[in-house]
């Protein structure tokens, strides 16, 4: 069930309208959740504040499992925003898809490799930035020659491989999930009554599984972000 993308050109750049729309929606949802949850802050947390604090502690746990809090504390906000944004993005494509004029408008923004790779490049770029900032240019450069000098080419390849795998893992999982959902909902469900009946439990199961996968992928993306960060920032590597 391949639908086209609603693309348009602006200032000499090509935009995918669906991506723009969904990125905005996902960001708005994350922002609304976060702001509503922290509307009434209290020393004794209740309701949503508890949830947000749990998310914070969860990300804190991820960071603490990869590096020292002295170095990792500065990535806390990045980590929370990442995990929330990716989770919400992954979930957006699950309940339904909207196709207008054979153009797919409603989908997960993370079901597009260009979005996930943008995030991945941004993360890897940040790791290099903080690597230089925290260890100095010399310490950062030495990182490419340890533990063995001849590993240098592998280290270079590793940087690109990390970027690609980080972005494509997320994209692959979410895209595959949505693709199968659209096949079930738009394909199987239209093959007569038997097909509709067969599609209902399958879609149900696959949606549940996709929620699981979406959550896991958000966690993995954040986890790997911190792992790559630790590689560049920590002194024992």
């Amino acid at each position: 069930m391949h639908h086209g993308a609603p693309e348009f050109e602006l200032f000499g750049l090509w935009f995918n309208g669906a991506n723009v729309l969904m990125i905005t929606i996902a960001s708005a949802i994350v922002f609304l959740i976060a702001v509503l949850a922290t509307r009434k802050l209290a020393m004794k947390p209740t309701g949503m504040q508890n949830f947000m604090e749990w998310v914070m502690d969860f990300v804190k746990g991820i960071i603490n499992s990869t590096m020292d809090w002295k170095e990792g504390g500065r990535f806390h906000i990045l980590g929370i925003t990442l995990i929330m944004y990716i989770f919400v993005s992954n979930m957006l494509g699950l309940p339904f898809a909207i196709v207008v004029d054979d153009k797919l408008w409603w989908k997960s923004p993370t079901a597009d490799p260009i979005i996930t790779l943008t995030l991945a490049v941004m993360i890897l770029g940040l790791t290099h930035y903080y690597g230089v900032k925290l260890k100095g240019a010399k310490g950062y450069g030495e990182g490419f020659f340890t533990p063995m000098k001849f590993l240098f080419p592998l280290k270079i390849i590793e940087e690109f491989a990390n970027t690609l795998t980080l972005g494509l893992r997320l994209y692959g999982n979410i895209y595959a999930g949505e693709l199968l959902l659209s096949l079930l909902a738009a394909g199987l469900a239209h093959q007569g009554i038997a097909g509709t009946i067969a599609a209902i439990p399958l879609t149900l199961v696959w949606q549940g599984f996709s929620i699981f996968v979406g959550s896991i992928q958000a966690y993995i993306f954040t986890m790997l972000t911190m792992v790559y960060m630790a590689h560049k920032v920590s002194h024992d590597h």
Partner: protein
Amino acid sequence: MLTSSLVLGAAEQAGGHVNYGDIFFQLIVFIVLLALLKKFAWGPLMGIMKQREEHIASEINAAEESRGEAKKLLEEQRNLLKEARAEAQSLIESAKKQGDIQREEIIAAARQEAERQKDAAKLEIEQQKEKAVAAIREQVASLSVLIASKVIERELSQADQDALINEYIKEAGEGR
């Protein structure tokens, strides 16, 4: 490579060109989201969490302090109680001793008094006896003198003599 073909495939799917606009849009939106959340959500939340941490730490400190104080007070009270108990014990002890001593004293005084009274009574008796003996002796002497004078005064017949003696004896008996 598989990955590159995937990426290229996605690009091809997008219609022969890469959506650079999406890249910039995603980057900018994410950075804006990060900044907004930091200002409006995570910052205040972290502030309150830190505040709570400090509050808990200070509460723990205060609790520890007051526990130490309570321990100190308890120790003090315990010592005071022990002291009071010891004092009471010693008071009882001394009172008992005092009572013993007093009893002994009273008994000794009573015994002494009894002894004294007995002695006084004995003395009295002795004195009375002496007095009685002295009186008897006096009377016997005067009686003897009387008898002697009577004997010397008269040379009498046997019969008269007997009568006289009898008379005198009678007299003596009466005088007595």
